């Protein structure tokens, strides 16, 4: 049974596309046949993060309009065999997306993919709504910061009230909280909301905490999803997220506290 997973947040710049890229790559690395769809029509970014921007010929709007087949528009990922990308259109706007067209595409993708990851645009307008409407599960990406938390709260409200599952009276969309750009040092200093603070407000299960890291920017610019970085805490954190998503509940929540360097490590000048 294939799953439609939306990566959403309400607020922009919190790491939706970074998460979509790494999460879908992680799913593929674990053997799931995965496709990631960029719903940010007009502000296409996912292809850059995935490093396939030069291979984009057709996009989701072409498929919706019936100009090309789905197969023609899907781009195979360079890092993972099981991963495909359906890019957004750069020259159109979000009104070109319609629910009927998206539903048709998703149904077709469900025939051959296990996981369909929808990278939502920011905001709560039609683009974001279309991306979340058909979701079975949702990764709600939140930064430890009040405005981001409030926007996530708004998105959770919309998921609970207006998604297809809500409208049809099915089981509600399964919600996962993903906290990104987390800096335990600044949390300790009282400059950032803590994981507990965020959970107290949003009250949905936590699927992972991604630490703030410079390597994310480097990975984006290099067109490689952060999960592929060697020896990076971000990559580890994303792998944990995928693990928990696949049902491994025992994984400890890492990167939530300040790491105390041991005496020996300090002496030897460890990382």
């Amino acid at each position, binding site marked *: 049974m294939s799953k439609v997973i939306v990566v959403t947040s309400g607020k922009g710049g919190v790491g939706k596309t970074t998460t979509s890229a790494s999460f879908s790559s992680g799913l593929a690395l674990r053997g799931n046949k995965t496709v990631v769809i960029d719903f940010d029509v007009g502000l296409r970014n996912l292809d850059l993060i995935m490093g396939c921007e030069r291979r984009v010929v057709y996009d989701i709007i072409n498929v919706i309009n019936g100009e090309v087949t789905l197969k023609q528009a899907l781009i195979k990922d360079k890092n993972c065999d099981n991963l495909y990308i359906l890019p957004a259109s750069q020259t159109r706007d979000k009104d070109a997306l319609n629910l009927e067209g998206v539903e048709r595409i998703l149904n077709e993708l469900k025939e051959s993919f296990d996981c369909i990851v929808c990278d939502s645009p920011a905001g*709560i307008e039609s683009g974001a709504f279309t991306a979340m409407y058909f979701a079975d599960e949702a990764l709600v990406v939140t930064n430890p910061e009040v405005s981001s938390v*409030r926007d996530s*709260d*708004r998105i959770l*409200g919309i998921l609970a*009230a207006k998604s297809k599952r809500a409208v049809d009276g099915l089981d509600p969309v399964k919600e996962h909280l993903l906290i990104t750009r987390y800096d335990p040092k600044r949390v300790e200093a009282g400059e950032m909301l803590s994981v507990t603070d965020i959970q107290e*407000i949003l*009250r949905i299960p936590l699927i992972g905490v991604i630490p703030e890291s410079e390597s994310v920017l480097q990975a984006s610019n290099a067109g490689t999803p952060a999960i592929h970085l060697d020896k990076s805490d971000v990559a580890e954190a994303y792998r944990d997220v995928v693990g928990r998503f696949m049902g491994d509940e025992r994984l400890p929540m890492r990167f939530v506290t300040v790491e105390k360097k041991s005496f020996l490590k300090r002496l030897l000048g460890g990382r």
Partner: protein
Amino acid sequence: MAHAEPAFKLKIANLSLFVLYVNTTDMAQLKNQLDTRVNKTHNFFSNTPVALDLSAIANSNISLDFADLISFMLNHGMHATGVIGGSTEQREAAVQSGLGLFPDTIVKPAIKTAPVPTTAPSITPNAEKTNQPELPEFGLTIDTNNSNVLDSDTQRQNPVSQVLPTFRPTMIINKPVRTGQRIYAEGSNLVVLGVVNAGAELIADGDIHIYAPLRGRAIAGAQGNENARIFVHSLEAELISVAGCFKVFENGIPENLRGKPVQVHLNGSDLIIQPLLS
């Protein structure tokens, strides 16, 4: 040949209806007061069906100029639909002007309370089986079935059991109420079991109970019920209001109330927030 689909259904529906109680045969006075009242709440009526209750003037041998009244009401968004009570002559005149006749008996069975003008609180409710409410100050009163009271400045909402019993079951919300969501318990109480986050809004015509943190807004007695109360398990609210009397917490909630179980009620025009003692 296939059986034809039924083209219509004929049923009796219990609808709530505005009733205009006509207390005078003086058209000038009636129009004047009606004009003043309706203008206070602009656009309240819009093609709204309204019945005319003539019981109070049934003993008068003067009949109203219904054609004139109908067009006057229409100008104010009210569609006169028919008359209740009145003398035989008045009812005949009404029919001549195209109005329907409501059975004379609809207000008679088992009236518990008749409408009371709260501007004259000394008057006790007419408990008798009468359909002649005494309304000394206003030439008319407008009844609603427990919703949409016309003016909130002077009137307190009274239970009106003219057509239907007004009991509505409590609305219960067992999920978090998130920012941007608004819940309105029309004509009833509201119970919320999930967290009410900042930017969310709870509105009830009756009381509001929240068995979780309230971080958003809670508005009880939205139609002007000054006896409405708010009960909160953990007060962290942005705004609380009872019958239009509200409080915001610009400088934070006082230490002795913040995060505590409290109740909120109205004492005169003061909004009282007090800790719930266990």
